[in-house]
């Protein structure tokens, strides 16, 4: 427990930006004119007054040890005037005010094993979550899944040869802390929770657990004389919502907690409106430490997208154009009854038109 002696916090909130901002960024704050990308991993932003700044983007493992961070600081001090920033995808960005420093900076990063890329039409770092490393409800790991996949996708990170940016996410349970993405890799439970009836009474607030179930499959019940909960397994959709509020309702299963792959999520408003990602593959084994089956499917999808999509088409827009029949054909994935939605807005996903591709 924290010392009662300890003083009250200084509730200072989000710190002001100034002291953390690279001088060229500070000087031209709000006055940028355009940008281009001299090479993968490098952005050049030009200000209205002509000032220029080069940004070198490099991948990290996100969960970094202090030694790694210090190495990055050394590099920043040497080439980037002592400033860096991190992207929403845990990539690090070095801002450089002289073009001449770009190449040596890149060499240094590569020398220390930091891949340079993630810009433009590349596959950027996968935004990931906690998993076995820290979470209390994970069905799989996050850091390991991401590491394995990024090893496989390294070439696509350091090059810009996709039709548009590819943004991926992973989630280590069905709560899905990972966001909507061009390709999302999420845990999908396939069996109802296994209830440890001896613990329920002590650990779970039964009414609120009952309330969490989206399909009202949970009802209070007496099990061998003690108050517990019961699940109607015919109703249960294995969503795992009951597990966080009631750990004795174990939803994670080494065998039956599978991985599912979703595509076509899009947050940007560019061209088409934002869209949610759609289920394409499921039932993939939670095969630590390298999840090869997942990597195989992801690569099939990326390859098809890369070969078939047009410039600027995001994953979902590409499929919108060529149609889902063709998507399943090109990726050689199976189309099943489960792809047909049966949740509350299912109707809106039916093809109510004669628009069909052949």
């Amino acid at each position, binding site marked *: 427990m924290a010392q009662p002696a300890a003083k009250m916090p200084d509730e200072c909130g989000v710190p002001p930006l100034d002291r953390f901002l690279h001088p060229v960024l500070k000087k031209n704050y709000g006055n940028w004119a355009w940008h281009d990308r001299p090479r993968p991993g490098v952005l050049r932003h030009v200000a209205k007054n002509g000032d220029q700044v080069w940004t070198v983007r490099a991948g990290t493992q996100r969960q970094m040890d202090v030694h790694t961070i210090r190495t990055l600081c050394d590099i920043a001090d040497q080439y980037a005037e002592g400033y860096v920033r991190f992207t929403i995808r845990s990539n690090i960005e070095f801002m450089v005010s002289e073009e001449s420093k770009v190449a040596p900076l890149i060499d240094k990063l590569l020398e220390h094993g930091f891949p340079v890329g993630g810009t433009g039409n590349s596959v950027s770092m996968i935004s990931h979550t906690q998993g076995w490393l820290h979470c209390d409800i994970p069905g799989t790991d996050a850091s390991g899944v991401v590491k394995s996949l990024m090893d496989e996708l390294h070439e696509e990170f350091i090059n810009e040869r996709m039709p548009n940016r590819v943004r991926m996410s992973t989630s280590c349970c069905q709560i899905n802390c990972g966001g909507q993405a061009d390709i999302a890799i999420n845990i999908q439970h396939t069996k109802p929770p296994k209830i440890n009836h001896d613990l329920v009474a002590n650990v779970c607030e039964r009414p609120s657990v009952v309330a969490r179930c989206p399909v009202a499959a949970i009802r209070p019940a007496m099990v061998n004389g003690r108050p517990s909960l019961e699940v109607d397994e015919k109703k249960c959709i294995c969503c795992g919502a009951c597990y966080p509020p009631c750990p004795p309702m174990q939803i994670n299963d080494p065998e039956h907690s599978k991985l599912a792959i979703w595509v076509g999520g899009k947050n940007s408003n560019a061209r088409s409106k934002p869209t949610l990602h759609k289920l394409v593959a499921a039932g993939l084994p939670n095969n630590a430490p390298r999840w090869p089956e997942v990597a195989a499917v992801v690569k099939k999808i990326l390859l098809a997208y890369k070969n078939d999509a047009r410039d600027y088409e995001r994953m979902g827009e590409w499929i919108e154009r060529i149609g889902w029949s063709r998507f399943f054909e090109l990726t050689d994935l199976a189309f099943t009854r489960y792809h047909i939605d049966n949740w509350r807005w299912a109707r809106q996903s039916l093809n109510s038109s004669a628009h*069909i591709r052949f």
Partner: protein
Amino acid sequence: MAKNRHDTPLLDQLEGGPWPSFVTGIKRLAKDKDMMVDLLGQLERSYETRKGYWKGGTASVIGYGGGVIPRFSEIADEFPASAEFHTIRIMPPAGMHYDTATLRSFCDIWEQHGSGLIALHGQTGDIMFQGCTTDDIQPAFDKFNAMGFDMGGAGPAVRTGMSCVGSARCEHSCYDEPEAHRVVLNSFLDDLHRPALPYKFKFKFSGCGNDCMNAIQRSDMAVIGTWRDDIQVNQDEVRRFVASKGRKYVIDNVITRCPTRSMSLEDDDSLSIDNKSCVRCMHCINVMTKALSPGNDRGVTILVGGKRTLKIGDLLGSVLIPFMKLDTEEDRNKLVELGQNIIDFWAENGLEHERLGEMIERIGLSVFLEGIEVPIDPAMINHPRTNPMIRMDDWDEEATKWKERAAV
């Protein structure tokens, strides 16, 4: 010479104006038909009070359960001659083509046995002989029947069908609509004439995606023409079109209007089409009718579940069969078989007064497909599910089914 007309100051206001007036028509009939004198009287009353005065009841012909819409006046005491004002629904030829002789015979029969008022046509496609006494229903029908015409549908039954002019006069036609219409409807005459289904069931036939029959929303089973191969392009006609309209016009009205951006206007003014992405929407063909036309490998897409408002809101039909050929008698029999399976399953599983679309909405498309043994197809949906709210522990078996189908 009929009885004196009631004053109809309100209806009289519907005689002026450039559009043909039904009131004038009815007045003409009222000259020698008391029934129409009182009909005008009751209608004027409705215009005054803004209330309807008809109630239903029962009326039909020997051998059939439906096809007649019985109407009895609630104010027959005031308007006795139109106390009974039933409608007989008769099925027209597909496409609503007539020779004048037939129309004249209709008029003669209806002048003798009915009010002389005929609606061409009802929204479901029937010839509606409106205004008939209970006693005259049978003799009138017998004469229509003798002419080779049969009763239309009403009540919880298969209803009269509709098909577009199609093959008879339209270059877009992708199958023989009139024949499909005739063969299908005539295979369900028992369900049409003897109402015994959960609710009504409508077939509509459109020869292409323009859907001139509103099949997608106004029928439970819509048969819409389409093609599998490439759009036929006459590049000379394309160039002629571009020359006459200008590139900008073509880009703004054709190229950018393609729903799947499947077209590109080449710098040499020729048109290239990505037929794999084309969704057969018909737009470019509609605009450049001389230069473009549907491919040669034609057939139909079948959609199910269209209906109007009650009780869950309007439903558009959705794809059931992405493509089937409809050239031969055999093809048409396959279509009939499909309709039969659907109607059987629905008759089994539909609730009372539940249309096909509502049932599918209730039980889910996958379950329906399994029930009628139609294989799933991605063309049935806009996109796969966006939520993980489903139990799928037999994923592998389901996936295998697909692989096996793909294999053959």
